[in-house]
């Protein structure tokens, strides 16, 4: 009967423990990254029937007698394989999202199609020359042209300024991201330490591991990493393309060095004591930010929108200036350039018209509408400049200024479209991976309620066994 009592007692304790686990699960039903835990119940080792000490009135030779139940372990339910896939897919999503974000902002800055954006400003500029060609002696048209040139210059400057600040913002975000990333890396290393300690004492550090997985997922959003678990210690080592970020309880933070133009380079220390090497950022939001800064918004890379904007501005300035200098103004004097000759070299960042035109009272006379000194009604040079609108410009790859700008817009459009597609597919992929993780590891309160009832009943049943044995003992003791 002692065996029965012990078995009933183990039933009570196990049911209690299992209820504890269910309670923990329910409390964490909404905790991000939490994996449901399960109490693994196993039967206690039985006493062999007929063995020593088995003679409590039971019949012998019936076989082994069970000794109850015990909670062998409390484990989290987790499929590490899906986690790996999730890490691998999170980095491209982070990269695509940043890229898309950048291009959407670029498109907003260009603001096309619109009646106020650069394309319209260029059209108005050329049209003002056309108008002047038939009214070369009319100062109202000279004012209109001067203002169209001024608006165009400001338009270019504004675009340049906005794209440039977007670029600087990307640079700042790189700095912040690296700091965030280093912080996450440090936390992973710290958790490794605790996990190792738990492993050493034979514990399952379920919640710590959940936390660590969530951290690694966040890290994967920043940059593509490789994660290896050390089976003996339970620690996770993280590598960035061969360079360690986390080794057991040690973390190796990425470093920022200020490079050209105040732009940060991301470096890792050299193991052999050499100078820091540029970190390999293969994918992730950091890659996206680096690409935004060094390619999409670059003013040196031919693909960069600032490069293209500067090229366009310089081409217009050069072409207009050349023709304008060859013409004659109302004052008959040899003409100046149309754009400010004191600004050299001129590009989108500093584009401005010749300040001479603002001089009172005769500044406008310097606008060279005429081709020869013949007379004030001559608009031949104005026509020639207006016709630049359809001129194929060698410096722009033999396309017109308008087409060059159109191609830049199309580039922004197709790139953005492609990134949007990638973001969507990647988002869907990650959604389904997270669904799979949820399927395996997510808490279902209904399931836990079921478990609670199950263990409650088990507890009640074990208690009943105890009271039954108690009654039996009383019956026995009542014998006189």
């Amino acid at each position, binding site marked *: 009967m002692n065996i029965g009592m012990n078995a009933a007692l183990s039933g009570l304790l196990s049911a209690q423990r299992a209820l504890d686990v269910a309670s923990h699960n329910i409390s964490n*039903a*909404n905790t991000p990254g939490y994996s*449901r835990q399960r109490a693994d119940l196993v039967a206690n080792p039985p006493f062999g029937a007929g063995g020593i000490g088995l003679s409590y009135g039971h019949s012998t030779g019936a076989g082994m007698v069970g000794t109850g139940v015990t909670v062998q372990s409390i484990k989290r339910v987790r499929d590490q394989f899906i986690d790996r896939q999730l890490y691998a897919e999170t980095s491209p999503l982070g990269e695509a999202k940043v890229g898309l974000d950048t*291009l*959407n902002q670029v*498109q907003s800055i260009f603001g*096309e*199609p619109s009646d106020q954006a650069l*394309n319209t400003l260029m*059209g108005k500029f*050329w*049209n003002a020359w*056309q*108008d002047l*060609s*038939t*009214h*070369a*002696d*009319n100062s109202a048209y000279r004012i209109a042209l001067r203002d169209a040139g001024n608006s165009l210059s400001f338009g270019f400057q504004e675009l340049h300024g906005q794209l440039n600040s977007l670029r600087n913002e990307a640079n700042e975000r790189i700095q912040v991201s690296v700091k965030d990333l280093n912080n996450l890396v440090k936390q992973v290393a710290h958790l490794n330490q605790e996990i190792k300690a738990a492993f050493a004492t034979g514990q399952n550090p379920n919640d710590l591991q959940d936390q660590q997985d969530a951290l690694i997922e966040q890290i994967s959003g920043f940059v593509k990493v490789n994660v290896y678990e050390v089976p003996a210690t339970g620690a996770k080592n993280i590598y960035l393309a061969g360079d360690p970020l986390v080794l057991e309880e040690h973390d190796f933070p990425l470093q920022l060095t200020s490079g050209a133009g105040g732009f940060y380079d991301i470096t890792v220390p050299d193991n052999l004591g050499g100078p820091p090497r540029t970190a390999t950022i293969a994918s992730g939001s950091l890659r996206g930010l680096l690409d935004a800064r060094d390619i999409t918004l670059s003013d040196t890379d031919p693909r960069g929108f600032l490069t293209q904007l500067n090229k366009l501005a310089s081409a217009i300035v050069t072409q207009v200036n050349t023709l304008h200098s060859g013409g004659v103004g109302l004052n008959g004097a040899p003409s100046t350039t149309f754009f400010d000759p004191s600004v050299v070299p001129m590009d989108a960042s500093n584009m401005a018209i010749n300040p001479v035109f603002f001089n009172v009272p005769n500044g406008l006379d310097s606008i060279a509408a*005429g081709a020869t000194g*013949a*007379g*004030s*009604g*001559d*608009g*031949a040079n104005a*026509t020639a400049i*207006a*016709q630049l*609108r*359809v001129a194929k410009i060698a410096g722009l790859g033999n396309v017109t200024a*308008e*087409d060059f700008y*159109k*191609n830049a*817009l*199309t580039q*922004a*459009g*197709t*790139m*953005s*479209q492609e990134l*949007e597609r990638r973001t969507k597919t990647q988002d869907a992929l990650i*959604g389904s991976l997270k*669904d799979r993780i*949820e*399927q*395996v590891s*997510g*808490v*279902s*309160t*209904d*399931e836990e*309620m*079921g478990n609670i*009832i199950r263990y409650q009943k088990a507890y009640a049943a074990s208690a009943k066994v105890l009271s039954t044995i108690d009654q039996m003992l009383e019956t026995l003791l009542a014998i006189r």
Partner: protein
Amino acid sequence: MRVSNNMMYTQSLRDVNSNHERLLRLNKDLSTTERIHRPSDDPTGHARAYVLKNSIDQNEQFKKNAAAAQDFLSITDTTLGSVMNILQRLRELAVQTANGTLKLEDREATAKEVQQSFEELRSWGNTKVNNRYIFGGVKTDQEVFPAAGVNLGPNDAGTMGVEVAPNVMLTYNIRGIDVFGNTTLPGNMFDAVDNFYTALTTNNQASIGQTIADMDKWIKTVNNSRTEVGSRVNRVEMAQGRLAEINVSLDSLLGDTVGADIPKTTTEFAQTQATLQAALMATSKSLPMSLVDFLR
């Protein structure tokens, strides 16, 4: 399949969100009746619309140019008409006065009229459009025939052109020299009138006969200029008509390119709306369901 609590939430939310996103896009398409709001909505469509828009803009400018030329030409035409009338009247007077039976006082009256005609011709020669002298060539700001007297400058100061269609230049002014002759040399229109006047005042019969021939010559010259003006007006009008036609078709192309297909978009909107409603309804019913509610 195991379904966890979070799964219910995230999946329902995802579906509702994607419906909202679609509804927002359709809403924008419908409220602007355009389907391209930025290049990435349709990069090739945007590029096409961009080219079409710029072509339309250029053509509008050409129409404006042509209108300016037309103004100039039509004033030139009426001016030439007035010059013509004066010349014809002078010829009539020459024919009348060539008759030897005319009395001296009649000749003096005629001479007065001729003098007046000279001034009229001069003033027509100084006609302005929008404050520009039309016969001065490119010297639009200088009086063409400044004061009485014959030596008024050559009046050959160039032609002025305007682009009325892509790369089509149209000269819109008639040079003074082509109407009145070179006023620095003898034998110009004013010379002829002046000679007539002198002939009348000096009663020079033979010289009056010469005036008839002169007037015939100048009437012919002015007539040629008028024909020239007429043909240019025709060209401008044709060019304008063609530009207007082209712009109509470009406009409709642009509409096809950027315009939202309203019936299709409306249908899609209604569908999305229905889907969203269904999704919201289903979510509102399924999310609150829990075993907890059924346990005592």
